[in-house]
């Protein structure tokens, strides 16, 4: 695999020997992962393998403790940064369960976020005109209706609308690394296609995407360069997209069995 990588591609995320626990329970047990610009990685695995824990640990959610290991994000020590600083550095998490914030419009929410990020980068706040133009442009990517942008964040959104809104936010914030945590869960086939097509349009040589998923079907639309199997807190197998198909066919027990041998 390593040979396929072009030299000039920069490493965005380098996780070494990551151990993490939640409420005293060890979930991640020595996870290694390297993600370079321009790549799409899929992380698959059975329930309880630690997929969502990985997303939570990387994004800095409270209650998750890193007990060993390192993570460099674009050269910076990720675990030394607060959750909002990680976002400001360009790490984005598309939530499995997007949160509702009553009374705060999507637009106000995003403008606050963008201006906070811009201030962090010592840039001027975005003008209202430029911002609205951006909203218009990006909402088309995920076929988000105009009124969803002005409604309260995720409040009263259907499951599909919430997931589309996550990708809309990703489009607005233009992260270096986006982690999609089970973005496909709860989506019908049409919504899945819209979301996937949005993600594909956002993919470029300078950013990277990590797709966490249970099922292969999302990977029909977002084609991964690498597929990793996460089991019992570690990546136990890495392959190309055909691995996902193999998993689909044989189930995770196949991995577990292989592990034990």
């Amino acid at each position: 695999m390593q040979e396929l990588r072009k030299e000039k591609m920069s490493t965005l995320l380098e996780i070494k020997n990551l151990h993490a626990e939640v409420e005293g329970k060890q979930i991640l047990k020595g996870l290694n992962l390297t993600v370079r610009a321009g790549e799409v990685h899929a992380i698959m695995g059975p329930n309880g393998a630690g997929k969502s824990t990985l997303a939570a640990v990387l994004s800095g959610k409270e209650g998750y403790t890193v007990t060993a290991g390192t993570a460099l994000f674009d050269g910076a020590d990720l675990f030394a940064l607060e959750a909002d600083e990680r976002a400001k550095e360009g790490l984005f998490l598309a939530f499995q369960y997007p949160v509702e914030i009553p009374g705060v419009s999507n637009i106000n929410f995003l403008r606050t976020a963008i201006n906070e990020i811009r201030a962090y980068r010592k840039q001027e706040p975005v003008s209202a005109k430029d911002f609205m133009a951006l909203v218009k442009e990006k909402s088309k990517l995920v076929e988000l209706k105009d009124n969803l942008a002005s409604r309260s964040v995720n409040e009263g959104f259907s499951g599909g609308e919430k997931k589309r809104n996550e990708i809309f936010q990703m489009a607005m914030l233009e992260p270096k690394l986006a982690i999609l945590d089970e973005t496909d869960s709860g989506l019908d086939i049409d919504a899945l296609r819209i979301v996937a097509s949005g993600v594909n349009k956002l993919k470029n040589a300078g950013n990277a995407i990590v797709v966490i998923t249970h099922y292969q079907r999302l990977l029909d639309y977002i084609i991964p360069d690498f597929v990793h199997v996460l089991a019992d807190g570690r990546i136990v197998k890495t392959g190309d997209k055909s691995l996902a198909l193999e998993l689909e066919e044989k189930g995770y027990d196949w991995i577990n069995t292989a592990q034990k041998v």
Partner: protein
Amino acid sequence: MGYTEEELANDLNNKEYEFGFTSNIESEKFPVGLSEEVVRKISAKKNEPDWLLEYRLNAFKIWQQMTEPKWAHVTYPKPKFQEISYYAAPKKKYESWDDVDPEMKATMDKLGISMEEQKKLTGVAVDFVMDSVSVATSFKEKLGELNIIFCSFSEAVQHHPELVKKYLGSVVPSTDNFYAALNSAVFSDGSFCYIPKGVRCPMELSTYFRINESGTGQFERTLVVADEGSYVSYLEGCTAPQRDENQLHAAVVELIALDNAEIKYSTVQNWFPGDKEGKGGVFNFVTKRGMCNTNSKISWTQVETGSAVTWKYPSCILKGDNSVGEFYSVAVTNNYQQADTGTKMIHLGKNTKSTVISKGISAGKSQNSYRGLVQISNRAENARNFTQCDSLLMSDECGAHTFPYIECNNKSARLEHEATTSKIGEDQIFYCQQRGISEEKAISLIVNGYCKEVLNKLPMEFAVEAQKLLAISLENSVG
């Protein structure tokens, strides 16, 4: 309109009570204590007519026979009424703006309401009350062209005694409650506003109160009369310097909306709430009430972030048929603050309608109570009320309480009551952080969203101030 993130950031850097400064202005002050003689002296000092002295003396007698109310969900040391000075006035009198003491101007600058700025930029007429005596009133001439009267209460007594006599105490009689009686006896100054028939007041009328003398109780009296078919929007904002001892504030506000008139009364209250250990802070025991005549409307909007103890129920008496009463409130308590606030909607006329939206936010070790009465009289056919009462908890040690009272004596009434209690979500904060928003700003955003229905009712300049106040009040408050 510019509520910018930078402004908020600056405010957040200022961790201590922003307006906790004292200005050194020479002032004349009565010795401490309260007696009939003091009441007479206050009246004499202000050169009041006999009927007003009688009014005060009568109220003083009533007050002497009353005891402090105990039903509110607050605890505090009983004010020592004989250790308060009941009159303080800046010594110097001012003929024009140019004569105003530079230090007082500086004080106003710190408050962000300098007259110059006000005059030039905002079009808001400000009646600035510092320690009971108005020192400057702007835009008077412009308002004069429309025969709108907007002046200090003392001036109104001198120049418009017939109006004052007719309406003073007509909504809040001296017998109403302990603190209203005290206020009626010793009120020092306040504001008076009269909008003539059919006149729509072209600007927001604004009064800034400020307690500035150590150990001086403040007893403001406000009277707003909107004559038939008129409209006025009135803003009241309060700030106070930092003090160690408790300061008593017992104001009375009376609103009268005659037939087809409308009054909007907005308050942003930011008195010193006491320090983090609960030391100091203002006691705020206020009686606010409006009288609605036929087809009239009174709307109270308040954002309460200050004071150590608050006891306040802006109310509407819906006397006239088809009259409308509204109450929109955000009350924030942090550290050891206590607030018992709400409204009374008294439906007397037919087809009367009232709306109550109350948003309580408790943080630290504070106690925040909503207390509201909706009363439908037997004559009030087709009365309607909608009450929504939400509480947001920011910590594990604070309290939120709701005491709704409903008295319905007419079967045609339709009453709705909704109430929710929620804790600020760590998930919400993390979601904001994951999008690049810092924790403090996330809390501010979430709380402002929660209060949106109320903040939307405020005039723009107040809404901006209110948002900042919410952020300042809730710093480091998630626990």
